[in-house]
């Protein structure tokens, strides 16, 4: 396949950045999207150019490190797929592909397609945990958990922290990410003691980081590689309102 790539290039946080066009030829349909970029990068290196910087690690859709906006869609149009799991067979020969970094003020660009997502860590720091020091836990069977609750908690817990939800949200909101963690812990008995304080602290931190508010447009869940459902946001809202009512 032959493709035209329009890639956001920005040499550092202070650079204004621009779109640069590359033509790549003989791309194999079996390549993953990142492998296609690898090949382009090797070429760029040999030509003495700076290769395109992008984040990636596991390349199997679980670490949450990769992510770019492909043709205007976070992680590309393939549903429930991270960028690293996207394969070139889903593109047409001769296509033009636009590749951009996540865009959000709390995700400043570091270089090219690499952004700083440490704001997510700070949201977790605000309360996304159960306070249980090592060695102080009771026997695992001392508290049974309904299977339905465990499964629903699991569904929320699968968030990989990639940030696609923020990239896709017209408001640049981190609600889906934050709600996924709040819901995961809210649904388990172990998460109850800190439930309301957690919701309040995390939502407030999300605001403090400069993310937008959610207006329930649902773009986030549509691009989320793990399909985190929107009702996690309702759960977050409910916990948050209860926390404030207190």
């Amino acid at each position, binding site marked *: 396949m032959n493709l035209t790539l329009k890639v956001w290039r920005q040499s*550092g946080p202070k650079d204004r950045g621009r779109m640069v066009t590359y033509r790549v030829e003989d791309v*194999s*349909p*079996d390549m993953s999207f990142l*492998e*296609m970029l*690898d090949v382009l990068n*090797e070429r*760029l*290196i040999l030509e003495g150019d*700076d*290769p395109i910087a992008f984040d990636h*690690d*596991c*390349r*199997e859709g*679980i*670490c*949450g*490190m990769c992510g770019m906006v492909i043709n205007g869609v976070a992680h590309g149009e393939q549903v429930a*797929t991270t960028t690293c*799991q996207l*394969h070139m*067979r889903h593109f047409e020969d001769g296509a033009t592909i636009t590749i951009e970094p996540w865009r959000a003020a709390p995700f400043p660009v*570091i*270089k090219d397609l*690499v952004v*700083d*997502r*440490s704001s*997510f*860590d700070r949201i*977790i*720091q*605000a309360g*996304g*945990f159960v306070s*249980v*020091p*090592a*060695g*102080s*836990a*009771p*026997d*695992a*069977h001392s*508290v*049974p958990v309904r*299977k339905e609750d*465990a499964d629903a*908690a*699991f569904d929320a817990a*699968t968030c*990989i*922290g990639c940030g696609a939800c923020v990239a896709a949200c017209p408001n640049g909101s981190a609600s889906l990410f934050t709600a996924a963690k709040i819901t*995961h812990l809210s649904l*388990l008995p*172990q*998460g109850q003691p800190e439930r309301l304080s957690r919701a309040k602290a995390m939502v407030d931190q999300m605001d403090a980081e400069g993310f937008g508010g959610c207006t329930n447009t649902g773009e986030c869940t549509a691009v989320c590689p793990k399909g985190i459902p929107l009702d996690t946001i309702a759960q977050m809202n409910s916990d948050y309102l209860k926390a404030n009512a207190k």
Partner: protein
Amino acid sequence: MNFVEGAEIRDTKAPAGPIEERWEKRKFGARLVNPANKRKLDVIVVGTGLAGGSAAATLGELGYNVKSFCYQDSPRRAHSIAAQGGINAAKNYRGDGDSIYRLFYDTVKGGDFRARESNVYRLAEVSVNIIDQAVAQGVPFAREYGGLLDTRSFGGAQVSRTFYARGQTGQQLLLGAYQALERQIAAGTVEMFTRHEMLDLIVSDGRARGVIVRDMVTGDIERHFADAVVLATGGYGNVFYLSTNAKGCNTTAIWRAHERGAYFANPCYTQIHPTCIPVSGDHQSKLTLMSESLRNDGRVWVPLRKNDSRAPGDIPDAERDYYLERIYPAFGNLVPRDIASRAAKNVCDEGRGVGPGGLGVYLDFRDAIGRLGRDAVEKKYGNLFEMYERITGENPYETPMRIYPAVHYTMGGLWVDYDLQSTVPGLFVIGEANFSDHGANRLGASALMQGLADGYFVLPTTIGDYLADGPFGDVDEEAVAAAEVAVRTKIDRLMSVNGTRTPDSFHRELGKLMWDYCGMDRTEESLRKALERIPELRQEFWENVKVTGVAEELNQTLEKAGRVADFFDLAELMCLDALVRSESCGGHFRAESQDSDGEALRDDENFAHVSAWEHSPDGTPVLHKEPLEYEYVKMSQRSYK
């Protein structure tokens, strides 16, 4: 490559006495640090996987000042996140006869009698606490309708002791540790440095006192000091270029610590996983693991004829070779990982492999679908099938899957004693980065257990005993400068070669060489060839690599080049270790050492020891043997016929 033999290692610091009492004894014997002093003690933890994340969080909880490092943009992305299958623990919740002793026994045996009994017993003992800890943190393990935890049997174990969270056990456990870590960061006991790569260890007055790291965003070379350093930097399977490891997994941290005096134990022990998605072309950048559970219902076969190019559906049963069922009628498709892997390689070497390059065998669900119905198969394996289709574009309900073995885990690593301390005082090594508990082969679902056992329960106790002597005062400026200069020199050198090949192209070539000559089966001849080729390739690397850009910014080419440089050195030691160990054991198969059935043949007479390699400045490694004794589990040869 030459080596010399040094003194035997006699004392591993494991307490004497009955095995059930040793850990209790050690815990009691370990000196305590008084709480007021803890605040004055700094600990550096490199790595935020299950091992490092849990250790940093726990040390923070205990009141030490912790600095934690990882090369990703968040501690949550460490490669532990990718583990699918599950985590073992001797809870015996099913009452199916499991016990600490049985887990201990299975692990020693599974490790093909190349692991230390004391360590393994402790691992089994602590395993039960891990599950309690994880559940209390909110890890959503699979549950039964009664609300209790579900378990399954894994990797040929006869009891059901593997706890799991769908196919994402590593992820959920790591998020638990990550959340505990973030809690400590918020509390101010842990300072987190993401996108920081450790490039050297600072050893001052014979003690590990800090690290030199590169801020990967700004390129700044920074020095960080502490009273003890913990390495939890994971495995080095990427020396093969293609492996199931994440792209960033590297040996840099442990290798440079090795160069500063830490012994490297059993570098040649690598585990090959039989069910990975095969390579699709030269562009392949990594391999994806398919859960082993697929072998419960899939049947493995290749065409009887060589170079049979017919579509799998067109090959009648009579012309198929279900070779695992044929050779191992008792275990069939469920033979252990190394046997299944080698058998696949053998049939492909005969020219009967399928798919691109003939490097693949079929894993066929036709019969399972016929027997159980498509729905039942989908229910059991739906997400795995989907993953396969996503990557290959083929529908496994209709065409058989193609699988091939791939490098998965490295049992070797830095040598540590019972306290998880390396040969450099104050340098502790945990998780996959150390060599300790799995011997020559790791059981499925035991790596997660080991990482968390080390991080939550073992290290926090044993490191206290060391730190009780601290704080250790100022760090020798000369030692620091030396380490920093070494790092800067290496970077400058890489930046200045300006040759004509990319770091990746060298890495791929090294990987292929290692796979061909030091892979699934190794011969004296192949290893000698590798030992000849590696230095040549390394020389070419240093003369002809091309790194673009500047070192003072985010430079992913430079990062890669630095890692590849260390892989060369490690690869050489791996081949040497494999050459010297002329027996077969566990994941290490020397073709010269097999029985008449082609099974691995151990040589307990000569090789019942750990090979711990010391780096010497003149480049001649020194081999220290740590003899292994088995008081509890009787040595036996395994057989799966």
